[in-house]
């Protein structure tokens, strides 16, 4: 499990269909400070590709991705 010990905000978006988890992350990024570490859990299939693609485009940092039983866990650092 996780190597990052400090999480500033955790979002459980399991059960939300696409693009709900991505929109939850975008909302957290809008509200957060540069350097914040955000954890998001998603059981939506499309999130596996959509979330890393958005993080890359928006210039943030994807620190961790873990596949759990029936969902994935992403840890993101707000970089700008």
């Amino acid at each position, binding site marked *: 499990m996780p190597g990052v010990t400090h999480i500033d905000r955790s979002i459980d978006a399991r*059960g*939300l*269909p*696409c*693009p*709900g988890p*991505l*929109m939850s992350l*975008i909302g957290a*990024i*809008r509200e957060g400070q540069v350097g914040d570490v955000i954890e998001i859990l998603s*059981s939506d*299939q*499309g999130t596996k590709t*959509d979330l890393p*693609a*958005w993080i890359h*485009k*928006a*210039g943030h940092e994807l620190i961790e991705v873990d596949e759990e039983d*029936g*969902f994935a866990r992403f840890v993101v650092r707000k970089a*700008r």
Partner: protein
Amino acid sequence: MPARIVVLGGGVAGTLTANLLAADLKGDARVAVVDPSGMHHYQPGYLYLALGKAQGRWLCRDERQLLRPNVDLVIDEARRIDPAGGTVELSHGGTLEWDYLVLATGARLVPELVPGLREASYHFYSLEEAHRLRERLRTFRGGRLHVGVAAMPYKCPPAPVEFILMTDHYLRDRGIRDRTELTLLSPVNRAFPIESVSRMVQPILDEKHINLMPFFNVEEFDPSAGTITSLEGEKVESDLPIIVPPHRGQQIIVDSGLGDVSGWVPTDRHTLQVEGQDRIFAMGDATNLPISKSGSTAHFEAPVVASRIASFVKGTAPKENYGGRVMCFLETGHGKATVLRFDYEHPPAPPTPSPVWHWAKWALNRLYWHTVPKDRFPDNLPLPIPMGQKETWR
């Protein structure tokens, strides 16, 4: 003593629910709808109005004409709800007491959340703004036209795609399409939030030479420079930006402590009861449910809310649950449309756009006043509209 049922909001959600309750419970309940304007708007018509295909007077009716005679209409603004005391405080004084409360308060537009949005852009999400956009389009002679959304969730997810496809048609009719660059700014990495619909829409955009800028979440406008900047760091210059403003839940929800940080009501996705509240239900645009904010959602939620409240009043076990059912049209321009039917578990599988669905939408636009709010719309039409397969984690 009859049960006291108060419905906040006279849109499709509140009107249909009140009518269903009054028809079912008759003398066993006193049903009141509270609405600040007393006017009912057919909001899907705003898009047609902006493009000169509908008149404003087609889109509004006196709410009283749509309610059954045994439903009271209170034209006033509800200011605060006391969930424990079972009361609603009204703006002009007075208080309503309720045994059951329905929150059908809808969403509000908050353009002020995006710097420059109000000054620099247009939209078609209110009657006034649809009129303003229609006038702007009339004087438009070509240039860079962008359609996008400032933030999700927003009402009627197909509307931006419909609007840009219908605008393509509108500009061709006026002979200025070749002088106009059309661009769809999408908050996700495809043309439409739902992937199956996007797969159908993208080839139509390509065929009509409409550009797509994916992952463009509007952050701010510079009215003097005519630029839009995205959260992702991109900037575009626009001669005519048409941007759906951010939406939030109503202030009364926030003030009454019944909403989340954005004012949406945490709602049980199946029973439509407000979380932690036994006697309060939420529906339509007001909820935090992961489903379209649309009249169709409200239409299919209303029988569930009405049936569950009626069961409580009668002392029987409620049986009806909401499964996320939605059915709505998506206009693709040039007299064609498709239809989206889906629920919590099954994504839409839209059929190839055809004139049949366009005319079906047009018929609904004209027949709405006589059907949906009055529960005269057949619930299970034998229409050949497929849904996709349930998705599983893999």
